[in-house]
């Protein structure tokens, strides 16, 4: 241990600061670091635009096998308007999870039974991508 500290003392090299950093730039970079830390996209998440969410959801529902694409509208109800049953509704919600890349908890998923409700839920969810 003692030998090590002697060695380290012996090997110590004076560090010359080559470039004097510009004080304003250090301030700016530390400010940016703080901003990144507290306001980063990962932490805060972003809310998707409602019209974009609507378009994507309509697309997913139209691609669902049993759905007649001409019947799909932004305020269609899965069971009343699209003629789907509760099992199909589960499948659609799972397809929406895949489209938007996040997991919808069971109690929320049970409530989603129309395109309007799906749009409301997904556009208010910060993790939807």
């Amino acid at each position: 241990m003692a030998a090590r500290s002697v060695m380290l003392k012996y090997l110590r090299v004076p560090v010359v600061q080559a470039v004097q950093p510009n004080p304003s730039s250090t301030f700016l970079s530390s400010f940016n670091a703080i901003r990144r830390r507290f306001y980063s996209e990962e932490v805060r998440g972003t809310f998707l635009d409602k019209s974009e969410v609507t378009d994507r959801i309509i697309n997913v529902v139209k691609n669902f096998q049993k759905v007649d694409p001409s019947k799909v509208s932004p305020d269609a109800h899965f069971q009343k308007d699209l003629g789907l049953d509760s099992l199909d509704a589960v499948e659609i919600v799972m397809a929406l999870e895949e489209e938007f890349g996040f997991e919808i908890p069971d109690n929320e998923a049970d409530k989603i039974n129309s395109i309007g409700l799906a749009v409301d839920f997904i556009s208010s969810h910060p993790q939807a991508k």
Partner: protein
Amino acid sequence: MSVVAASAPSRAEVLQLYRSFLRVARKFTDYNIREYTKRRATDAFRQNRNVSDPCAAFADGKAQLEVASRQAVVYSLYAPKLKSVMEVHN
């Protein structure tokens, strides 16, 4: 280990079981097994929609779900090195 309830499963419980199946199906690394599990679950739930003994069907479903989740782990240890041509999108 949960004791199988004697009363008929509620609608919400059945949908939850179905959702669990679809979630497990997604975990399979192999495309064919993944799609098969999904298809098998969908077919079975539709086939049993008017089943006379929902308790037995529900208990069977729960047992099968355990098998599927166990198999998903086993299959993940032997994941295929190449993707199936079916999952390649250009």
